[in-house]
């Protein structure tokens, strides 16, 4: 393929910031972040199969401040990726392409992800926190 002098689509530097582009980028970032987080899921399952000593190591890591920080981030990333993913599934069946609806569903996805994350961590706190 030889490079041509045809005009290119707008680069990010000249692209006006919009909610839709931000949500799209965040969807990808959370997807990649959740992929990294799956390592902890595998570690948890393997340790549960291996025995009490291994499980304690993973459990203590999760209950440490750093582990809790990661879990907090991943819980929001999961909620956001799921809520925005449902938005994508709606688009896939042809629903909600009108611009006002795109913005409404975008804000709904953000709000629902925050609400779900708050619910999860509300449960954690209500049951006495970690450890």
């Amino acid at each position, binding site marked *: 393929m030889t490079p041509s002098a045809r005009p290119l689509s707008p680069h990010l530097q000249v692209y006006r910031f919009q909610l839709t582009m931000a949500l799209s980028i965040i969807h990808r970032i959370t997807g990649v972040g959740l992929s990294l987080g799956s390592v902890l899921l595998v570690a948890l399952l393997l340790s549960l*199969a291996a025995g009490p000593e291994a499980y304690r190591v993973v459990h203590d890591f999760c209950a440490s401040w750093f582990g809790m920080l990661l879990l907090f981030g991943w819980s929001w990333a999961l909620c956001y990726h799921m809520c925005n993913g449902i938005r994508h599934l709606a688009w896939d069946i042809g629903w909600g392409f009108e611009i006002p609806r795109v913005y409404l569903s975008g804000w709904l996805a953000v709000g629902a992800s925050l609400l779900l994350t708050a619910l999860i961590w509300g449960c954690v706190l209500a049951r006495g926190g970690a450890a």
Partner: protein
Amino acid sequence: MSAVELRTPLKRARGLGSAKDGTHHFIIERLTALALVPLSLWAIYLALSLMHADYAGARAVVHQPFNAICLAAFVLALFWHMQLGLQVVIEDYVHLRWLEITSQIGVKFACFAGALASVLAIVRIALG
């Protein structure tokens, strides 16, 4: 006429077009996404319920057939969806050919290993 020019245009075009499995990729990505909505919510619920469980308690929960099956379905859908998603991210942003190929292979191997390790762990707990 040189030997190169004797080759037909078809010969030169072959192997350079679409792999013809883009639609399948699209559909599987959506199907796994659809499955992951209830499975993730259930996994969050399970994680919260296991928060204060000791080792024996946590193992007993995963030992139950319903939980073991749902957990296995969750990790399978998760790693399949993950591979499809990361594949697109790599296709879009990694333009060094050798790095693109090696990361695609690496992601496939890692996702397969993750799914396999998780399912085997679940089976060990479910049958143990």
